């Protein structure tokens, strides 16, 4: 994973903290187990000796574990809160998104992702966003639960029918970021891929304008066919 958004940076750090904590726990348990098994075998020939566990020992162990859990909880809340904060649009970003984030809808349907842009244009499979711009992505679904999953940019988010699920990101570098869906949604679930293409604000503007005009032209053609019964 290579985070390319302020939120993903926070997620990455928290994940690292979690893995370190997990490794500490695993090593502590298994080292203690290994030592106890090596040291206290029947072959040593001594009689078993009962240790008396005072309450204080249990309290101490409990206190250490509680402190460990509390520390992780605090770190978890701090980093998670940072990760879900709406980022600010930078200098190089889209001018119209300076005051409030660019609002885009991501709609999962069996087995495609559809993206709706503020000007009415839409695209399938690929989401195009401007670089260094705060994006508010509303993850939705029209049929079953789909999880929008582009790890390098944003948190995983479930699109549940009838529920709005807003997440924020701001890509710091132009390029294509691969993604997929992370909840079993039927037969073609494994092929339900997606991608986010991060481009300059100018390219983004021209992309949504072209999409819009092409979509409108196509719609006009359809209307023509319906009304005149002929293909122009």
């Amino acid at each position, binding site marked *: *994973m290579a985070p390319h958004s302020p939120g993903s940076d926070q*997620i990455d750090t*928290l*994940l690292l*903290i*979690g893995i370190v*904590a*997990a490794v500490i*726990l695993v090593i502590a*348990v*298994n080292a203690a187990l290994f030592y*106890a*098994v090596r*040291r*206290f075998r*029947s072959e*040593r020939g*001594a*009689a*078993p000796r*009962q*240790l008396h*566990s005072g309450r204080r020992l*249990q309290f101490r*162990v409990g206190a250490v*574990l*509680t402190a*460990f*859990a509390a520390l*992780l*909880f605090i770190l*978890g*809340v701090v980093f*998670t809160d940072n*990760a*879900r904060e709406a980022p600010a649009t930078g200098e190089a970003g889209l001018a119209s998104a300076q005051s409030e984030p660019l609002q885009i809808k991501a709609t999962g349907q*069996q087995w495609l992702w559809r993206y709706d842009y503020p000007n009415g244009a839409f695209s399938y499979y690929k989401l195009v966003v401007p670089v260094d711009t705060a994006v508010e992505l509303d*993850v939705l679904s029209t*049929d*079953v639960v789909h*999880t929008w999953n582009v*790890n390098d940019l944003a*948190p*995983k*988010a479930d699109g*549940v*029918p*009838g529920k709005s*699920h807003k997440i924020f990101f701001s890509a710091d570098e132009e390029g294509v970021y691969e993604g*997929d*869906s*992370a*909840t*079993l*949604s*039927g*037969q*073609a*679930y*494994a092929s339900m891929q997606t991608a986010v293409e991060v481009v300059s604000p100018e390219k983004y503007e021209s992309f949504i304008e072209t999409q819009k005009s092409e979509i409108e032209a196509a719609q006009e053609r359809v209307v023509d066919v319906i009304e005149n019964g002929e293909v122009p």
Partner: protein
Amino acid sequence: MSTSPRPELVAEGYQSSRRPRWAELATSADHKEIGQILICGALGFLFIAAVELVLMRLQLLVPENTFLSPVAFNRMLSLYGATSVFLFAIPLALGFFYYVAPLQVGARGTALPRLGQTGLALYVAGAVVLYSGFLFTPSEAGVNPLAPLSELAFLSNNGVDAWATATGLATLGFVLLAINLVATLRMMRAPGMAWRRVPVFAWAATVSSWLLIVIGPVLLAALTMLMIDRNYDGIFFADGSGGAPLLWQHLSWIFFTGAYMLILIFALGTIAEIVSTFSRKPLFNRPVTMASLAAIAVIGTLAWMQNMLTAPIGIGWKYYAMLMSLALVVPFGLVLFNLISTLVGGTLRMRAPVLFALGAISAISIGLASELVQSLVGAAWHVKNTTDATAATHFALIGGAVLGGFAALYYWFPKMTGRTMGELMGRISFWTIITGLLLGFVPLFLAGDEQGQVVDAYKYFDSADVTAYNVISTIGVLILFVGLLLTIVNAILSRTNGSPAGHDPWSGDTLEWFTLSPPDPHNFDVLPDVRSAQPLRDIRVAIGHRTRRTEQGAARESQPVA
């Protein structure tokens, strides 16, 4: 035990006219017979679940493999989930609880035997429904069939109905068995067997039974709603018009999270018995261990929303789920601390049950530690629903149900059959399982954490850079399969060919070792007065004192009178 005339022996004359063995088994309400049927059924379904896992791993051996079609893979996945949870793990735990716990508390039977018999029948019915392939196409909706995918609009064949019926029947059966266990352990303990003297495994049975009585009906309610949705135009889990897809997630995760805790409580209870018996020491700090097991049941189940950290629910609920999951560090940590401290100062005899128990501690620690990463909300936004989650769950549950379950099998097999399981084959099986577990699931941690490979997908792409991980994982699962098979074969062979065990092969401290192996239908002719948590140790100590006194007396008498 005694050779003096017993009233029970008068009935022996009738035994020649007994019905055949299979008819006895089918109609018996005896807790030992029912427990054994549950354990045998569970081991059979372990084999089937393992075959399904192997088939799925073969499909995932290379990128874009076409060994299984997407539909076949999803069916295999759904069958694997239902089989391993409802037909293997829970019945295995319940089978041992049902067989051993009444013996451990000195009960001569169970309080509600017919209820337990009905419970077994429902479990069998559930298994039959799930595997009547000629009547039902298997479900394609996954391990936990999330609404609305499970609704009629998206899966219109009868697969989900069969899944819901099968899991519902089995769950109802578990609840009935649990009610009987609670009643038995509450009402039928031997004189002197106060709660503070109840063996840890019997306590684990009590805690698990209460847990099942709470979570079982939650799943049954959800399944009923699902069946109404599918068959009577219901709208419980439909979007809009008053329904809510997330309702299914809440209800089903309450059950699955509780069941996860149940399996771990079973394993920890088993390990506690084995560790204390084989290091010849009472369990280190029993009261704290027992309280921790109860805390795991409560706090663990309250953490159900840990599975919904990517769902559109309020951030406050996600922090609550994280708090509950992290709070589990304390009771789990205390139990593991006390188990390991029991070893300290002891004289550990390294036999097969001990190997499996120690392996279970190790695997469970890896599984729980990685669940902890999964429960940090922000980190979950990266690793949820990746193969990291698969690996975490499998380490905890293979550690609990397979290693813990096999530890119980090797430990109590002599009590059930009068014969000991093969030691060498047990050791080979153990090391094969450990190798398979590590090779099979450690690569999935890496594939999930580094590359974000998603769960439940029937294929992956070469461009995702996860091919090497998946190849190693498939090899590991094949090794794991061989290891499982070795213990199952060992159990079958040892039933007739094992070396005779006697009533107490491990010199255990709890009452089940006081009676015959296998026990008579009424369990005990006589019971000792229970004055501590180790009644058999008390007897050994008393006999030791008397022998020593007698020897001293004899020595004194043989002294020449001065």
